């Protein structure tokens, strides 16, 4: 069994062992401790130096494993309670072009292509629009849809009326033994 089953771990790293890298990954997944020297606190837990922790996180950010590093906010708690998932049925060869237009819109926070699951689900392009109330979200979407390329597309708005659970993903990586 190879420990490289977890692709982002680097067995060539001269400073942190595979086990220590994994411990650090699992530790930051749930957030930094809110103390003056958070990286030192993590370092002491893992048995490495503060500099090594900072270097490892910096590496992960540069590799793109970490997309962003900072405050992860529950927007609903700040009044953004009207979150709509907007789904579009776009011809396959058009998806990239339409997605680029959507991704440029200020109110669109995420834009993904996903598979259709016919006959239940014909939509292949997803984006999120956040607002403080339904009217605001609908108005923002109506404005986006004035774009000539978007006007005639078939779409649906799925408003979220309740959040049952909202937290960061836990990958729960473990080294095989």
């Amino acid at each position, binding site marked *: 069994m190879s420990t490289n089953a977890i692709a*982002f771990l680097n067995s060539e790293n001269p400073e942190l062992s595979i086990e220590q890298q994994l411990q650090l990954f699992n530790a930051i997944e749930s*957030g930094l401790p809110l103390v003056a020297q958070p990286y030192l606190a993590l370092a002491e837990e893992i048995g490495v130096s503060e500099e090594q922790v900072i270097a490892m996180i910096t590496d*992960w950010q540069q590799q793109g494993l970490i*997309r*962003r590093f900072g405050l992860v906010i529950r927007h609903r*708690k700040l009044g953004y309670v009207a*979150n709509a998932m907007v789904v579009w049925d776009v011809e396959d060869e058009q998806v990239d072009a339409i997605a680029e237009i959507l991704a440029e819109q200020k109110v669109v926070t995420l834009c*993904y*292509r996903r598979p259709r699951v016919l006959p239940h689900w014909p939509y292949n392009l997803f984006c999120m629009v956040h607002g403080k109330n339904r009217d605001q979200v609908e108005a923002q979407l109506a404005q986006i849809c004035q774009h000539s390329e978007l006007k005639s597309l078939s779409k649906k708005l799925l408003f979220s009326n309740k959040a049952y659970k909202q937290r960061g*993903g836990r990958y729960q990586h473990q080294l095989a033994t």
Partner: protein
Amino acid sequence: MMTARQITSETKVDSLSQQIINAYQKNFPLCSRPFLQLAERFNVSEEQIIARISLLQEQQILSRLGPVFNHKQAGASTLAALAVPAERLDEVADMVSQFKQVNHNYAREHQYNLWFVATAANEKMLQQCLTHIHRETGFEPLILPMEQSYHIDLGFEVDFSEAEVNKHEH
């Protein structure tokens, strides 16, 4: 039961916290004393910064201070949905939330009315989890993994101008 007024006053976000939120959803400093760096920028003490961020966490406005991973590199993840009879929605939602692999779980207005994101260490464990959810709830999930991302989540600017914070959320 608390009144709306009590809840609002409890979760009020002051202007320092607002500035922190809009400045540090990305590029949080990677240095020995990161909060000190924020303190110098906003001209307050390191303790004040830590206290504000701790308060945001207590108020559950802050989910965490840390990384948002690229799911494709960090493990396996998918969006999925169930079509649940309206009268069973809360009950089935709770069953789904019980799974530790489920991080986001929302009700949405559609025949597919329960939408969740499941995350696991790898594809095989993700599929096992979805199979368990199917078996336990009796509803077959619509499985919609991300194929292409066109917009990277860099956090978004919060408009505090009508700072009416969290009147009804759980």
